[in-house]
């Protein structure tokens, strides 16, 4: 089916491999070494959460929308989940977290699909709201989770040698890929993102698709929030709060177009892994937190630049 090797679609995998080799060589004597099993496992654990969200973001960008409120949604969920786990147990905590995510996604979807607000503005607004919510909910206090079952299943524990977050991530990727590539929903999302008028003229209910996409994003943010709470052993208003830009960057790095209609779900995962790898390496290079931010920002700019060039030359 594929006629020729497409450098633009594969650039993420090439960059991924190149960075991996560079880091492995230059950082082989720092600590346990970059390429050591324990360090790679560490990267994987950190990346899984961003990857889960990147799956959702792929649908969002595919439909030519954007969601800036993902980070604070994660933080809110971690707190809500923690409060409910402590009071009513694991099931209640998980349910409460997921329900929050779905409601938050519905709020975003409602603003975009039915009030016809530009997604950038709408989610910029909800981002601020959720961020404030996460801070006021417990007056900036963390909520520890003492329930061992919860932390084992969500994020903290291992199944054999495999971290449980990894299993969650794989499950999300598989389901996301089926939804995107094998079920009608993915096609409809891309049709809406590719040309919204032509999609409407094809009988697609645009508003319903936009709504569903934003709800899916909210749901996956909530799942990420629950996993974060499991890994951290509690909820906190800073958890995942600044992951929003990383998630968008991961998707765009992976070959998903900001203009909609063109996506790469597996590319987004590679993008997320690359961002995780980069974070890890920057720490190992001994950069301060603020220096790390500079580099991360530059990488995001580079990602968008590559994507813009990609669209122009297309």
């Amino acid at each position, binding site marked *: *089916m594929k006629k020729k090797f497409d450098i633009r679609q594969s650039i993420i995998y090439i960059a991924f491999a190149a960075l991996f080799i560079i880091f492995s060589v230059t950082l082989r004597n720092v600590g346990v070494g970059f390429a050591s099993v324990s360090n790679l496992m560490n990267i994987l654990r950190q990346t899984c959460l961003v990857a889960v969200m990147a799956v959702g973001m792929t649908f969002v960008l595919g439909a030519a929308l954007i969601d800036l409120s993902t980070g604070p949604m994660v933080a809110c969920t971690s707190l809500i989940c923690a409060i409910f786990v402590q009071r009513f147990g694991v099931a209640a905590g998980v349910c409460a977290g997921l329900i929050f995510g779905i409601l938050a996604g519905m709020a975003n979807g409602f603003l975009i699909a039915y009030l016809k607000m530009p997604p950038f503005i709408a989610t910029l607004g909800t981002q601020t709201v959720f961020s404030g919510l996460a801070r006021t909910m417990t007056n900036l206090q963390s909520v520890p989770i003492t329930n061992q079952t919860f932390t084992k299943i969500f994020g903290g524990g291992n199944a054999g040698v495999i971290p449980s977050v990894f299993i969650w991530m794989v499950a999300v990727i598989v389901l996301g890929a*089926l939804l995107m590539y*094998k*079920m*009608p929903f993915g*096609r*409809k999302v*891309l*049709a809406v993102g*590719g*040309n919204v*008028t*032509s*999609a*409407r*003229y*094809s*009988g*697609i*209910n645009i508003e319903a698709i936009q709504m569903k996409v934003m709800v899916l994003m909210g749901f996956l943010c909530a799942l990420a929030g629950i996993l974060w709470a499991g890994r951290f052993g509690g909820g906190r208003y800073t958890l995942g709060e600044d992951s929003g830009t990383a998630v968008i960057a991961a998707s765009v790095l992976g070959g998903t177009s900001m203009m909609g*209609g*063109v996506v790469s779900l597996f590319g987004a995962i590679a993008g997320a892994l690359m961002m995780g790898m980069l974070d890890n390496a920057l720490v190992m290079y001994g950069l301060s937190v603020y220096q790390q931010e500079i580099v991360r920002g530059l990488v995001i700019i580079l990602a968008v630049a590559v994507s813009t060039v990609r669209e122009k030359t*297309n």
Partner: protein
Amino acid sequence: MDQKALNMKEICIGFNGVQVLKNIDFSLEAGQVCGLVGKNGAGKSTLLKIIQGLYRADQGSIEILGQDVRESHGKAFDSVGMIFQELSLIPEMSVLENVFLNYEIKEHNMIQTRQEECKVQEFMEKYNIHIDIYEKVKNLSSSDKQMVEICKAVLKDKKILLLDEPTAALDDEQAAKLYHMVSQLKENGISMILITHHLKEIIENCDTIAVIRDGIMTLHAGTKEVTMEKMIEAMLGQEQTDLSFARSISEIDKSRPVLELREVQTEAIRTPLSLQVYPGEVVGLAGLKGCGRTEIFRAVFGLDPLKSGEIYVSGKKLRLRGTTDAVKAGIFLIPESRRFQGLSVEHTIKFNIEIPLLKKLTKRLFLDEKEGNRTIDEYIRRMNIKSNSREDKVKSLSGGNQQKVVIAKALATDPKVLLMDDPTYGVDVGAKAEIMKIIDEFKKKGGAVLLASSEIEEVNQNCNRILILKNRKLSGELQNEDYLTVSQDKLAAAIQ
């Protein structure tokens, strides 16, 4: 002063080896209004673009106000102003700001608003226009916007104005106001070229008439010497287009319409509108631009909500909350613009045709790729879509083939009613005939078609019945059972 405003001699131009204009001689006196007429694709807009200096003629000479274009290195074109069909004003700016946009009167780099005001007020008084110059352009009516456009051009000292379909968006009263202004401009020595499909307006308002057909000027004479009939003949010629397949003529069963509109009203259609389309029937909607055909399609396809009235498909009353309901009921629209409405050009042929089919192709949650591929390949073959494979991106196809993808997409949903809004716009003759053949086959199988086209002969040659539309109202009906009863000029005259 016998100096001509515009004098063009032996103008030829071609694109990609296709000759678009052949040996065109054209001239315009100062203070003269010329009506330029011709079918779509005849070469009218190419000629206008040459006059504006946007295209360079391959051959021939152009003099503007006695100045040879080549000698003046294109400076002569500065006296030509285009009044755009799609208005070129910035909606959020005031009238005053728009008029002087990029030509601000400045002293020491400061905009001299007072002087600008004076100039505009002077113009407004001279032409008896009442527009608040501080109003934002977006709050003006279409006709006022046009006045502002003209003001902008005249204050820039343009001596030749080109007006492309200036009355398309205007009602009768506004059009009268515009033509009054045209006559005033004329008195002030400004020449104008006017393109419109309203032939009556040309006869009433122009000094001379020029007709272009297939790149040749078939008529260029004073209005007094020209009749409506002569003009239409020069426009259409004696030509028989090569749409020469045998159309199936069958008895139409008029017991139950497939599509029926009863007293339908929307925001755009003010007068209640009723029509029926029977199985195996192609009904044409004929009328000028803005006659309301697109609005009828929008209502039937669920894009504009009904204010009153009912729509029935095969006797069943529809509840249209959106296009989803319309498609479900067996209606499919082939929209006016394939690029903006019909297709997602960045995607493949397969992707596009499958979008409305997703439900049909889904088996137990998953898409049946094999079934999809089979369907797509069948349509590519049947419709003769020229491509390498079903995975070709739509944007890599030619216009005619893109349009075939749009039609394949519609037919694949197995509709009962096809709404076609200008289905052969910008499509070459060969593909046009193929598309019409496909419509004929669809009709033979009992489908109902509502067809609108900007080319009257297309409506004439393909419709059993033709409804005449004027000002978003049905104003007449022509029977055309054997495709011969209605003559071209009769139809052309009927829509005027």
